[in-house]
């Protein structure tokens, strides 16, 4: 008994000591990375975690950080679980993080209202709440380079062009296979509005999180309904399973489109039959960029990365790099704006509003042609950038289209209404008090 008490006491004491410990040196910037290398979403989460970590680590190794200030990187495992994600947030909050990347829509939603109170900007890159693109209402949340509504409008536009014009979509049937969570359901209102307007029919195929790997019933229904096109909003093991099921059920794979989340492994799951599977993307695949070569040289070859060598440059790895590129730019811009070296979350929020990744800047960073340009501003925290379509050729992704611009006219109304609605429902939602910087 007394031994147990002693053990408990020891544990409590260590816990308290552990909480008191993290006092970081004042000449560094703390960047927590919320990652998931465990659980059902680890298949997608691991390459992203590697990409995020490796790019920032490369900056540390090659340049000694950003602007001469070392970055302190710390991963916190969320397992894509809201409970653990919120715990991670509480754990890092006290260490003055300059930005948090929840990497889950479910974790992003509870953090959005806290961001302005805790003065920690949230970077939810192309996920999270679409309405948070409005910088005047959500000054602390950033979701570049495009929202899910933008993505949906791009897919419809692309399919329409294939048919020979948006008006040709009349009478067609479009299936929407989505994860049955706020992430997958977000584009539905837009899809329904477009269906009314353009006259196509929508069939919804929700996939519950616990059934991600068993989609036979959805694909059976799809076989019965015979949708002309299939659009997928999936994540984690859902993507690979969907491609596999599509191939197995004989659905014409070239009519199967996805938003930007599947990776190479997901397409490989379908075997040879997956050839022709298409998805949206907004950055290059491959390691043929000076910056990524530097990652190879300074991080991977030295054994500082967890990524196997052949995974460097894969789609989701590069997605992680893009995420870290935004973090790094946010910090660099903040240093430029404030003249300080050690920046805080408040500075980085300003920095992110001044992100200007034009071709010249990308070239300077060693990522020429990696992605389209991205300019954020005080009012626009998203950019609503165009994405392109890429196709799986059996071994790799091949870019098959020019940039597809989102249907801004149709998306904007929805977005503004949603942002207004959010602010109204959250009584006491603060008015933006943060001053805007003059566009530099």
């Amino acid at each position, binding site marked *: 008994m007394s031994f147990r008490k002693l053990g408990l006491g020891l544990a409590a004491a260590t816990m308290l000591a552990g909480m008191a410990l993290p006092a970081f040196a004042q000449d560094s910037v703390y960047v927590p990375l919320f990652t998931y290398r465990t659980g059902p979403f680890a298949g997608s989460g691991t390459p992203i975690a590697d990409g995020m970590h490796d790019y920032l680590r490369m900056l540390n190794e090659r340049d000694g950080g950003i602007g001469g200030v070392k970055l302190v990187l710390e991963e*916190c495992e969320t397992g894509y679980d809201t409970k653990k994600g919120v715990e991670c947030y509480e754990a890092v909050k006290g260490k003055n993080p300059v930005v948090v990347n929840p990497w889950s829509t479910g974790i992003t939603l509870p953090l959005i*209202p*806290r961001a302005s109170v805790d003065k920690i900007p949230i970077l939810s890159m192309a996920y999270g709440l679409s309405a948070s693109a409005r910088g005047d209402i959500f000054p602390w949340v950033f979701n570049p380079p495009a929202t899910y509504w933008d993505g949906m409008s791009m897919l419809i536009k692309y399919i329409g062009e294939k048919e020979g014009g948006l008006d040709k979509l009349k009478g067609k049937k479009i299936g929407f296979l989505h994860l049955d*969570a706020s992430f997958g359901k977000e584009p539905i209102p837009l899809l329904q509005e477009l269906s009314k307007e353009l006259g196509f029919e929508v069939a919804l195929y929700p996939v519950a999180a616990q059934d991600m790997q068993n989609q036979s019933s959805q694909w059976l229904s799809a076989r019965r309904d015979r949708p002309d096109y299939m659009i997928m909003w999936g994540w984690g093991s859902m993507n690979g399973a969907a491609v596999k099921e599509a191939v197995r059920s004989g659905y014409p794979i070239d009519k199967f489109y996805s938003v930007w989340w599947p990776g190479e492994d997901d397409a490989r799951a379908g075997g040879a039959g997956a050839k022709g599977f298409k998805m949206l993307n907004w950055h290059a695949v491959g390691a043929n960029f000076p910056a990524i070569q530097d990652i190879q040289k300074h991080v991977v070859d030295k054994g500082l990365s967890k990524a196997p060598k052949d995974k460097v440059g894969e789609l989701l790895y590069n997605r992680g790099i893009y995420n870290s590129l935004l973090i790094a730019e946010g910090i660099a811009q903040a240093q430029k704006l404030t003249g300080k070296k050690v920046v805080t979350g408040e500075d980085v929020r300003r920095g992110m509003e001044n992100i200007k990744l034009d071709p010249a800047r990308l070239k300077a960073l060693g990522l020429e042609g990696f992605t389209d340009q991205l300019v954020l501003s005080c009012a626009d925290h998203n950019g609503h950038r165009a994405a392109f379509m890429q196709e799986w050729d059996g071994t790799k992704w091949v870019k098959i289209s020019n940039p597809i611009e989102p249907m801004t006219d149709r998306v904007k109304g929805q977005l503004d209404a949603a942002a207004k609605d959010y602010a109204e429902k959250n009584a006491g939602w603060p008015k933006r008090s943060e001053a805007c910087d003059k566009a530099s």
Partner: protein
Amino acid sequence: MLYREAGQFKTTYVADSAIFPLREDRIGLAIIILGAYALAFLGNSFLLQAVMIPFLVFSLAAIGLNILTGYTGLLSLGTGAFMGVGAYACYKLMTAFPGVNVIVWIFVSGFFSAAIGALFGLPSLRIKGFYLAVATLAAQFFLQWCFIRIPWLVNYNVSGALDAPLRTLFGIPIIGPNATPQTRYLVVLTIVIVLTWIASNLVHGRIGRMWIAIRDMDLAAELMGIRPLQTKLLAFAVSSYYCGVAGALLVFLWYGGAEYDVFNINQSFFILFMVIIGGLGSLIGSFFGAALIFILPIVLGIVLPAMFEPFGISVAADVIEHLRFMIVGALIIFFLIVEPHGLARLWQIGKQKLLVWPFPY
């Protein structure tokens, strides 16, 4: 030495049937409660927000399930869903009637959960054991389906998620992003103490004895004049009430916004494990169970890296996660082998030994 029964004479029946007959126990309880309140002013925000608030919320849910499974012997796998009913009811009530104080709605939301719980408890009259568990599983899936499919429940939010609008008590924000962990903790602590006190009185009184009689032998209980239907339904209602309030606290005072997925089947199992590990049919066991299942992984997450660090080994976050899983799993098996009646039984044995210490008898 300090913990002795000697010299404390009970001169009335009331004193004899008291829940805490020992003076030391009463003092200990007072110290714990005072300490819990003092923690609000001593603890940092991580301790309050990420450890203590969820611990109290889960303890409350575990008390709810313990009333049903531990005291009445009815196995339920619908705890997560009943928590969800409370959360969604609270959201609807506080947005529809923003003028009424939210504390009122937190308590009222439990009644919605109680009604739903009693409804799904109806089959318990005819089916028992594992079969009842399956019936409550149906409640879990059906209610979760409702949470996703009925947009009215979330006031047609595009995100499909619950959010926490600003609500105040005596002018101090207790719900919403501006509420400090300190105030949230004080509110949760007070609610949990009040409800635990009520539960303690329930289970030690006539109603609790009826539940226990049904659990121990329902046929005998019926012959003694206890009505099985009313008793079982009352257990379902009271249990769901506690779960519902816990659900409302979970969303509005801990997360500050949540998706339907928070109330999935894993949540139900999570609470069930707490009850089993903590001790079936014990209120303090509910707290022990919540501490072991919820706080231990967090402690491990902090202690493990600190343990490896002096040796220059940096352990990755995912390895820690795997270690947490393995250690907690092993400990659960260990405790179940050493004491199948849960931590509460260990506690009781410890107290009895302490009474006669240093002598064995």
